[in-house]
């Protein structure tokens, strides 16, 4: 501890300390705080230090961690890896002290400018490794809201923490759903964090107090996105949208509009309109989802086929589809028994390497 007072070696000591720190926690936290205050620019330049500090913050175990954990009803099942950290270090100190100190460190830390990698990592575990441990969780609100407004992956990741704040700590965030709606782009379907996003979206849209036009807009937007969605995301997308309809029977008109029987040339839905009230999603139909009935993958077709008949009464379990990957799907396909190979009739029945198909012939020459 004494070593840390010396500014010259401070950095090296920080890098050498074991990450689940086995000494007394409070002095460490105090030292960290002063270190961040003092060496702000230095840390901002070096990604390693940022990661290091983040690791320390993550590893601090608050005695009442269990309490906070029990308070958090919903824990994403994706984030279970931080649980086996021992809480020996916290024995000698009172909970409150650790919490206040940690809060100070976090406050200082979040004020820094991170590299993108650290930013992502911070946001990834904010809701389960930082938020339950600080004194006043609402102090993270500023950070989260600003990240949420950044757009793209960062705002996607900030959703989780924001949601916890709104749910348990009464954070008032007007126009949350508008922002959420604006997040729905093609990138969501291709992103690495698709599972996390949809898991959260499922909880957001789970409330029955959301206005119908909001749900309709989300459903229609997702359905529009599905036109370009990779096969692996389609089962999730289809079941998620169908769940929306199941939860809000008012949306049934999107799938089964019996009142009007005329041909419709243009979709009334306006995808460019950011205001969900004005985008006329409720006047539309989910043609895009129905198009997947002729998808190339039979699994997708099977789910899409359910759109044409009366929907089931029980919601789909989307967790089943959250983490479907193309690799799995291919493995599934290849695991099927191969049909008996038919014999090719003649030599002319076999194509040469670059011929016989109209597309290849036209675009490619040998």
């Amino acid at each position, binding site marked *: 501890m004494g070593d840390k007072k010396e500014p010259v070696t401070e950095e090296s000591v920080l890098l050498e300390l074991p990450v689940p720190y086995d000494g007394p926690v409070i002095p460490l936290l105090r030292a960290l705080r002063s270190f961040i205050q003092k060496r702000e620019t230095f840390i901002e330049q070096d990604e390693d230090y940022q990661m290091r500090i983040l690791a320390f913050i993550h590893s601090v175990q608050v005695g009442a961690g269990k309490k906070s954990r029990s308070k958090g009803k919903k824990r994403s099942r994706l984030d279970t890896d931080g649980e086996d950290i021992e809480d020996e270090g916290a024995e000698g100190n009172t909970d409150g002290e650790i919490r206040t100190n940690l809060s100070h460190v976090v406050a200082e830390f979040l004020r820094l400018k991170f590299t993108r990698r650290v930013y992502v990592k911070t946001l990834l575990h904010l809701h389960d490794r930082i938020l339950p441990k600080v004194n006043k969780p609402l102090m993270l609100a500023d950070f989260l809201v600003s990240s949420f407004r950044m757009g793209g992956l960062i705002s996607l990741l900030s959703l989780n923490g924001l949601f916890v704040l709104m749910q348990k700590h009464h954070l008032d965030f007007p126009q949350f759903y508008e922002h959420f709606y604006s997040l729905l782009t*093609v990138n969501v379907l*291709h992103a*690495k964090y698709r599972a996390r996003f949809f898991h959260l979206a499922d909880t957001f849209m789970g409330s029955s107090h959301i206005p119908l036009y909001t749900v309709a807009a989300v459903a229609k937007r997702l359905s529009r996105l*599905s*036109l*370009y*969605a*990779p*096969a*692996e995301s389609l089962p999730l997308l289809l079941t998620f949208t169908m769940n929306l309809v199941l939860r809000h029977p008012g949306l049934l008109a999107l*799938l*089964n*509009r*019996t009142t*009007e029987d*005329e*041909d*419709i*040339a243009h*979709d009334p839905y306006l995808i460019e309109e950011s205001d969900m009230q004005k985008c006329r999603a409720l006047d539309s*139909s989910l*043609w*895009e989802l*129905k*198009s*997947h009935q*002729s*998808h*190339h*993958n039979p699994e997708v077709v099977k789910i899409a086929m359910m759109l*044409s*008949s009366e929907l089931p009464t029980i919601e789909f379990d989307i967790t089943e589809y959250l983490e479907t*990957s*193309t*690799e799995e*799907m*291919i*493995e599934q*396909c*290849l695991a*099927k*028994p*191969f*049909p008996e*190979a038919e014999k*090719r009739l003649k*030599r002319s029945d*076999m*194509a*040469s*390497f*670059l011929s016989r198909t*109209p*597309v*290849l012939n*036209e*675009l*490619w*020459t*040998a």
Partner: protein
Amino acid sequence: MKTEKRRSVSDAKSKRFGSTAQVRTNPFELYLTKAKHNITGRTAGKSFDSGNSTVKLKKGNKKQGAKGQTAIQTHGLRSVSRNVAVTNRKKTLLNEYNSRTKNNRLIDHRLGEKDTTMSVEDKMMERMMFERKQSTKVKRRQFNLNDDDDEDGSFGRTMAEAERFEDQEMPETDDTDDILEEQFVSTHHFGGGLLKKVINDDNRDAQQNDVRADRKLQIEDIIAESKQKKYNKQNELDEVRDLTKSLDDKWKEARVRSLVSSAFGEAVNDPPVESYDNLVKMLQFDSKAKASDRLKSEAELAKDARDALELADKKRKMNRMDGNQDATASRGLEMLEPAFDEQEGDEDDDDEVELQDIDLADLQDDLVTVSKDADKKEKTADPSDIPFVIPAPAKRRELDVLFANRTPKEVHTIVSRIMSYHHVSLAEANREKLTTFYKFLLDFLLTKSDSEPVEALHLWNNLTFSLLELFDISQVKGATFTKERLQVLTRLVCRKTKYRIVPSAIYFLRFVTLCYPWSKEGHPVQEALMLLLGKILVNVDMSSRSSVLNALFVASLVTDGVLVTKKYCPELLFFLRKTLANRERQAASPDQSTSPALVSNSFSFQELFGCEGGEVKDKTLSRDDGQRVAHAGIALLEKVVSVYAELPAYTELFGDFDELIKKVKTGGASAAQAEAFGRLVALHRQPRKYLQFSKKPPAPLQLLEPRIDTKFDRSKSAKKTQVKRLLHDKKRSMKGAKRELRRDNHFISTVQLNEQLKKDAVRNKKVKEIFSNLYSQESEHKRLQRLKAKSKI
């Protein structure tokens, strides 16, 4: 008594009404409970046919009267039914009652006795007539010889009848046994034989028994004789019939023959037939097929090919022996001998099969040494020195040696020689050999594809047929091999966020589409391949020129599949959209406002691997190329439009693209293409409706079929129900019988009472008479006494 009297009065009345035919049922008397069901097997009601009542009721019940039935429905008519019952009793019970003390009964058979309409005189007349008739009948029979009733004629017919048909019946019965007949008649008929014997023998009594036995014997003889005669006659008849039949047959045959011969004779005599007819006849009798050499079976062809190879090889060796040997000629054979020690070969064997096509690193060095090795041996390869008989390589390394410094054509020759020498139909073990050969060959090609992608194209072009044939031969094992490769490639593609397509992957994917053509739908490999291609299109790295072109090639593979299978592939559209959007971004940048017209729209295959015309091109996508890529992308889209015209979301999908392409257009050619695309999209746009659930078909009518119990045991349940029914019947009939008996008793007692009353009345009358007589007697007596007394005085 009172009621009985009243009824008799009513009866009398009804009788009177009946005669006037004006009777109607009294509706107030009708006492009916409506019958709800017709119960089968139940009689409609009690019926009676006593003359008077019937007449009366017939008139009342017009329906029944119309039918003319005597049975009357008395149901509901109380007085009528009672009347019926009483009448019936009068007919039966009363008779019985009246004759209860009697043992016999007189039946009157006198003519007309029962007919009430006849008068006494008529009856007498009738009887007399009958008597006379009887008497005349007897007399006439006595003297009539040819009576109608005479049945002495043959076969129970009268003689007159028999006479009429005499000629037809048995025309030749009596012609042969005339004498016997005569004799027979004279001796036996009319008791002849017996009489004769009786006359001949005087001592009649003694020989009585003998004679009887004799006669019996004689009769038996006669019977036997006649039987024999009949049998003989029948035999003769049969013979005659057979003979005539055979004659008939012969005659017919002869006739047919003569007819045929005469016909032919005439034909010969006829003038010569026209050539057309002749031709037709010739055609008619022409043989339909001629014997020819059969086609050789596959096995025989294979054997021939093998023999030819062996022969050629022998010749080649002979040439060498003759002294023509030069360095090049011997090289072919030497090359076949394994140039490596076994250990080296063994250790790579397995991993090569697994991963070599993609992970080249560990093998690259080996390959280099191999090629160097081969280089040392032969500087120049000569197509003529390829040996004819080549053993299938058992090691991957041998294959490399075999193909070292060979042109693609020569490689093809080698492969086809190996294949024909190891044809499967020659030995089943060859399948195994060829399967390993297939693996090695594919592996070789894939390795080559990565190291020298452009040269590999010629190899692939030359070897595709052979490879496909080998793929077919290797059956399941080949398929699993391909499958394993596919899995490896999948892992590589899926585990990176940006996948850079390698040439071997391009070749391999194309080869898989050849192995499993899109037209054969529903194969698991196809599904997997579509997913993989889609994933590549999504994940592909588009940073360099060649990778863009590679992706475009994959996209055209997918488009091919889409055109055939007509399936929706979002990944393809995602890729095309991304490409066009990139292009739009480029076009939007200020420095590239105009660009020259395109030189050519298609890409050469060499471009895929970053070199064109021998020289390696720059890595970034040039402006010109960008336009070409966009052009190609639009071309792919155009192909897809017609396939996806049926999609419900067609408008959204291609409307987007239409706008995008309009933004992309920069050069003159692109603008025209954008316009064409817009027109195409508009052309395929179809009217569509809001989504609705598909209507359920109406529930089919429930057809209720009787449930037939196949194992029904009739005996048990039938017995039970029968016993029940019998018990019920018994109870009911017991009740009915009791009731009838009660009524009978009542009837009898009324009858008895009536009798008693009548008797009493008679007695009273008699008593009164007696008393009146006595009174008058008494009065007379008193009057006499008074007179006496007066006179005395």
